[in-house]
């Protein structure tokens, strides 16, 4: 079979698989990719060596499909990953008005717009501009991360304390969500230090050090919330048109493109952070623009970060997908880059086409089954995955992460603060004093 057909087939299989898996709340594509990489190593132990044309497009298809369709559980099941945090509130609003299908499809259109930006604007310019940008910005990356952290923490606003008599109770009411946000950030950061410097996970599985913590911080709290939630999902209407126009798409593409590109290029910055920064920078108020731009941002972040790994002469590793691939493959020429671009484009088209039937399918599913049960099944799958990869220790780390991840949910602060798990230790490392702090903590 020629390389063309291998690439095409593996792209399609990866895309379809990830589209189906994306419908499960809380399940992250990086967890699946981690398992697949372990499977590829296992095959290699038995002298079965897969060609890169088989697994690289497959992984690209996985990432594109998942980043396009993970909106479905985010909107319809209210179980977002950290990059979809901002989709939840307007998305749930759509859901409660019976417009969940439309909300999902609007985000999907955003994802499609994101793919156009990625393939037709970013991809041709990346080999020329990014190495230059990288060499200019490299000495300042640490400072940039600190500025982002400061922005995340300082742009949190008090929620409460507006009414009632003056005094400590009112003060506490106003500050409790801010304090909870800070506490979440610091606890998550402390956990990040432990996991980066002295992870209890076995050394054989060290490449998945952070995975159980991420599952605990983001996936489990939402699954739990869905299970415990008493809200009834109203009947969903399947719309045959979307309440968007060209201007909305352009505004969303600009805002989301900015956020997604920023997140894909800078280390540790995720789609959620990129979305937050771009949202503030472009000051978009329209709810539709908000939802759609998150679709754009999310897709460019996940897919763009993976794509940058293959840009010839750049040597940039951003995002979990690229880090997972780094131990498996070293991109060499523009052959790899073109292959990945082709796979991304094909996967983007296929996954968008799968969006409508799968959204309909999930709506039928939640009509027939209580969506709490779906969350319960997802919770079981995620925990099993964590156990398979990282054993009991991983489950314990996941439990601790869940405790921290519940804080923003219960105190109504931003869940983005959970990203302290990466932001704090990496920013300290980039500024050169991470090991010193780790030594103070007796971790090294």
């Amino acid at each position, binding site marked *: 079979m020629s390389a063309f057909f291998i690439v095409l087939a593996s792209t399609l299989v990866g895309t379809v698989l990830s589209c189906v898996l994306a419908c499960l709340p809380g399940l992250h594509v990086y967890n699946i990719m981690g398992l697949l990489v372990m499977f590829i190593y296992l095959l290699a132990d038995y002298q079965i060596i897969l060609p890169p044309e088989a697994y690289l497009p497959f992984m690209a298809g996985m990432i594109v499909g998942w980043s396009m369709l993970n909106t479905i559980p985010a909107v319809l099941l209210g179980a977002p990953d950290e990059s979809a945090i901002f989709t939840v509130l307007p998305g749930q609003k759509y859901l409660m008005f019976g417009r969940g299908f439309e909300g999902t499809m609007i985000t999907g259109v955003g994802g499609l717009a994101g793919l156009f930006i990625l393939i037709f604007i970013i991809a041709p310019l990346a080999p020329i501009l990014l190495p230059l940008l990288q060499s200019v910005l490299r000495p300042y990356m640490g400072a940039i991360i600190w500025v982002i952290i400061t922005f995340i923490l300082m742009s949190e606003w008090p929620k409460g304390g507006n009414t009632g008599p003056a005094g400590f109770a009112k003060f506490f009411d106003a500050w409790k969500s801010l304090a909870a946000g800070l506490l979440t950030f610091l606890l998550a950061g402390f956990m990040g230090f432990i996991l980066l410097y002295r992870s209890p996970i076995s050394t054989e599985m060290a490449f998945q050090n952070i995975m159980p913590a991420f599952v605990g911080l983001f996936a489990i709290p939402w699954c739990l919330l869905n299970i415990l939630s008493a809200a009834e999902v109203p009947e969903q209407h399947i719309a045959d048109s979307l309440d968007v126009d060209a201007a909305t798409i352009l505004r969303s593409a600009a805002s989301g493109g900015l956020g997604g590109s920023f997140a894909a290029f800078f280390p540790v910055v995720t789609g959620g952070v990129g979305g937050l920064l771009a949202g503030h920078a472009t000051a978009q108020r329209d709810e539709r623009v908000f939802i759609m731009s998150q679709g754009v941002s999310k897709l460019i972040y996940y897919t763009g970060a993976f794509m940058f790994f293959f840009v010839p002469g750049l040597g940039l590793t951003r995002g979990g997908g690229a880090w997972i691939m780094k131990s498996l493959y070293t991109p060499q020429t523009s052959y790899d880059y073109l292959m990945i671009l082709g796979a991304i484009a094909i996967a983007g088209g296929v996954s968008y086409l799968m969006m409508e039937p799968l959204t309909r399918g999930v709506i039928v599913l939640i009509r027939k089954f209580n969506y709490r049960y779906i969350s319960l099944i997802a919770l079981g799958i995620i925990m099993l995955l964590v156990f398979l990869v990282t054993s009991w220790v991983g489950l314990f780390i996941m439990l*601790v992460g869940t405790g921290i991840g519940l804080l923003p949910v219960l105190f109504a602060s931003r869940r983005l603060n959970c990203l302290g798990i990466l932001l704090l230790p990496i920013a300290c490392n980039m500024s050169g004093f991470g090991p010193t702090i780790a030594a103070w903590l007796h971790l090294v």
Partner: protein
Amino acid sequence: MKETVLPGHEQQSSDIKCSSCGRFVGALTRCPHCGARVNKRLSVRATRYAAVFLSVVGLGLLYWMAISQKIPTVKIGDITPTMNFAYVQIDGKVSSDTRIFKESGLVRSLRFDINDGTGEIPVTAYQSQARELIEKGLVPRPGDHISVAGSLSVAADDRVQLRIQVADQVSLVQEELGRTPINELTSESGAVLIEGTIVKVMAPQPGKKQPWSVLVADDTGTANLSFWEDVYVDMESKDKLIQGQNIRLRSSIKLYKGKIQLGLARAADLEFLDTTLTTPTPMKMLQRADSLTIEEITADLKGQTIETEGRVIQFQESPTPGKAPTRIIIEDGTATVTIVYWENVTQELGEKKPEEGTRLQVRGIVDVYKDTIQLKVNYADQLEFYQMPPTKPEAKPDITLIGEIGEPGEGEVVTVSGRLSAPKSIKSGVIYPLKDKTGAIQMLLWDRNIPGEFRDNLASGKTVTVTGELKLYKGELEIIPESSHAIRIH
């Protein structure tokens, strides 16, 4: 008895009724009718604090668990790709020289290799960790026993490295090495101690990124020692790096183009000996069967491979590659000989072309063409070009006091000496203020003139002597050295 439900209250939760008398109590915690305590509902606030408690306690346990566990010791051969990011300890023997990388005089990183018998792994320390290792005297030398902990980085194609996070986790036992005869050197020798005599010193060509090359001989054979300019700069007795000097060298073995080569990463590992070694004279060492003077190359040797060396007196590049060879004529004071090679060698040599006066070492097959003896070369690595090293210490230049420099004339060149202050980066270069007791001048180092490796040896506080052209720029005097050879660091 059947429970009485008031009309319209069928859907009411049992939480708002007294479980003792069954009457409505609302949000009260004690029944106003019968005085019984009413079961309290779970407070949301309680769940919040439970979450805080859970996370803090859990984190505490995790922390305790983390610091209680011993850093796992792994064998290099057992490292797998899934161990990326693992924090591990490796025990082994240092198998390479330690390379120290500097930028603007500041140590940026250091790197060495460890071999534990199951494999070899490069170990890197960056910035503060690298500086701390140097300050604590923990820079390993080839052959030292080392135990080091750090983070593993495993990339595809078996590219693995260990990154040191804290200098305290490096434990070093310095190994005293016994002398190794040169003829016993193999690519597997690892770290060696060589005692011998310098036979030949070849300095890098000015402005070119080439290493120093020193031919060392002992009573068993010869070996080539190679090191970079920064090592030369650090040598305290540069004047002793001359032919005939006895040396003791702690080195690691490298393979370069299939030949064994001695490496030198630190000037401290090269010791100039005052005593005489009991070795035959180095020049005698060269009287080997295949190393001949040009006069000794005769037609009788046709078909044999021999080695000779000399100064290039003529270089004729082939006007029609593929049809005619390129010719180089060399002389060594005894005779001249023509070296010929074809297009494939030209392509392998690339930009490398011999200039007249260049020293050339050649290994070739003796041939006779139109009654003239030729040496045929089939591979580029059979030709080695060297610049002749200084054979005697350079004459000391006249040093001008900075305060005595007036309005600079066109192309005026002076030599000044003084202490450097903090550098300032400019586009395509760097400026170091240079002060002596009479005044100050800006020492302008263009990137194109002074290579980065050399600039790394400069730092604020160092004393230098520099020769260069004077310029007046925006009212400030500047001295611009043409190459790194125009700067001497004291």
